């Protein structure tokens, strides 16, 4: 999708999409959201993956101080009585080619249920229903400023650009305690998925990939590209997922993803080729009381680049456990992340070894609501990681990175 558009046209398209949705025929008044997040950052991290390095965090020692977290515009409207449209646009104020860009834009058809079963169809660009952490509008997390490693990657490289069909069993509305849902999706424009994970390892940021944007400002040792969402092989991928819910106290999600990329198709204009990426993810969220939320998620997969005998392959796994306590205007959250990427096949003549990176990280966050529209958050992330490619940038393989953030957020 990205290469079909000149970069300069993308923000105009993003804005036009939002405005077109606002201007579309509607039955009811629409919902428009605006969020502004400003940060004071102190970081001793090595050069961030977002600045072309191999650091795991969003900010590094050269890019801290006063920063724009994000400006977010959200739109929810209605095309017909059972068809909602959603558009999310965001500006991060960093290196990206577009000052304002879309992260999601889709239509959601939900006919009224006439019994225990209901069908849903989503068409457009949207997140697969995988994260148990990113449950605020704009796919943000209410628990921490920085997403888990697993959901950082999903936010960076994955988007369903296509259609998804879901069949829901509405147990609660039928006097039962359980609810269940199954979804299948077919999508295109996700052939580079896996590139960032394989070349830079896992990261922990809250910087989502935008539909017409780029990843990283420069970037040794693998070049400066990455158009996130492109369809090089014209072959659709798919995922299938299932959800079980019990009375709002328990939610279990599982998903299998395969972008079915045809290996060996190259796109010189974006300096990339197709990446065949597959993974499984399982997640659990428990809400045993109105104060306490526990979340755990695990993801494991493989990604391949190029055909044999020139094939490269990586195996990757990520997981986290999060606990959050909410008391009045306060929310206290802590998360532990574990992540790992290992190259299993290599055709890189200039690398005499198989690449590998792994690590773990602690995140602690305190958030306080200041009235209806304001939030203040303090967060600390400490990441201990190793990456065999760091010596190519003159850095030690093992790094301990620490990042403090004070965020002030306003939204309405």
């Amino acid at each position, binding site marked *: 999708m990205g290469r079909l558009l000149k970069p300069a046209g993308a923000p105009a398209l993003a804005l036009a999409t939002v405005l077109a949705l606002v201007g579309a025929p509607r039955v009811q008044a629409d919902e428009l959201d605006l969020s502004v997040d400003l940060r004071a950052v102190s970081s001793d991290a090595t050069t961030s993956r977002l600045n072309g390095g191999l650091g795991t965090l969003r900010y590094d020692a050269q890019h801290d101080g006063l920063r724009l977290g994000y400006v977010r515009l959200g739109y929810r409207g209605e095309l017909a*009585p059972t068809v909602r449209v959603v558009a999310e646009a965001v500006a991060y104020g960093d290196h990206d080619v577009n000052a304002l860009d879309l992260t999601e834009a889709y239509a959601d058809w939900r006919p*009224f*249920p006439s019994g225990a079963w209901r069908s849903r169809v989503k068409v457009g660009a949207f997140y697969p229903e995988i994260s148990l952490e990113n*449950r605020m509008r704009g796919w943000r997390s209410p628990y921490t400023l920085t997403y888990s490693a697993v959901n950082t990657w999903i936010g960076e490289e994955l988007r369903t650009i296509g259609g998804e069909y879901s069949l829901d069993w*509405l147990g*609660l*509305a039928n006097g039962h305690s359980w*609810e269940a849902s199954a979804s299948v999706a077919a999508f295109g424009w996700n052939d580079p998925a896996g590139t960032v994970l394989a070349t830079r390892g896992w990261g922990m940021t809250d910087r989502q990939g935008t539909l017409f944007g780029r990843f990283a400002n420069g970037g040794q040792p693998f070049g400066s590209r990455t158009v996130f969402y492109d369809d090089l092989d014209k072959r659709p991928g798919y995922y299938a997922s299932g959800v079980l819910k019990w009375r709002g106290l328990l939610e279990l999600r599982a998903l299998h993803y395969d972008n079915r990329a045809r290996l060996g198709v190259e796109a010189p204009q974006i300096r990339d080729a197709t990446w065949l990426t597959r993974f499984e993810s399982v997640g659990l969220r428990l809400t045993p009381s*109105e104060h306490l939320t526990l979340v755990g998620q695990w993801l494991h997969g493989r990604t391949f680049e190029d055909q044999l005998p020139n094939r490269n392959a990586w195996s990757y796994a990520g997981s986290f456990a999060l606990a959050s306590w909410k008391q009045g205007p306060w929310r206290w959250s802590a998360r532990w992340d574990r992540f790992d990427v290992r190259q299993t096949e290599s055709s890189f003549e200039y690398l005499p070894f198989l690449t590998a990176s792994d690590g773990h990280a602690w995140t602690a966050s305190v958030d306080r609501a200041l009235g209806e529209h304001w939030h203040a958050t303090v967060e600390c992330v400490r990441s201990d990681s190793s990456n065999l490619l760091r010596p190519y940038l003159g850095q030690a393989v093992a790094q301990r990175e620490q990042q403090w953030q004070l965020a002030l957020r306003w939204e309405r």
Partner: protein
Amino acid sequence: MSNRFLKLLNFARYKAREMHPRFHRLALCVTASTVLAGLAARACAGELSVTVRSAAGSAVDGALVVAEPAQPAPRPAAAQHAIMDQRNLQFVPDLLVVRTGALIEFPNSDQVRHQVYSFSGAKNFQLPLYAGRTQPPVAFDKPGLVTLGCNIHDNMIGFIYVSDTPWYGRTSADGTLKIRDLPPGDYTLRVWHPLIDETGPQLEQRVVVGENATVTFRLQRALRQPLMHHGADKKWEDY
């Protein structure tokens, strides 16, 4: 005794006086005896004391108890008006009890829009996506339990019980309820709770109301866990 019935008696008495003075005296006698009978019935109106206990023997708070007379209860002269609000992604109250024929309004007090529906046998209806107080009231003209849902927020569940009788109530925290002013007669008592997880004869009892009657219901299974409600403002958006 209803005003309509008294008017009917007065009309009969007037017509009788037109026909013959003897009939007029007879009509006067009938009127007086009917009024006295009504007063006597009220004087010996019964009271039901109901207790609902869980399987473990503890008090059940908020159980609905409905007393259905053997003879159909008179319908109210005018349709009842009631409100089922939507606040913090919940229906408020969780259970609304109305008389058959009631008109219920569904205001949305949240910052997000809701899409209310029910496919229950007692009332099948849908309201389009809306905010505020834009939807006209909905008539509930069949007795029974109506389960409400929101097509956008699946965790929003509410209940409306449409009753043919005026004798109902919900138990207090100590699991008890008093239903007063019941005319003497045979009644079927039914108990229901939004968290009930059972069906069967233990939820129904027959009782004869003379002056007073005491009834205890004992559930056989534990109540379900209350629904956990999550984010309550427009910033939240679960899948």
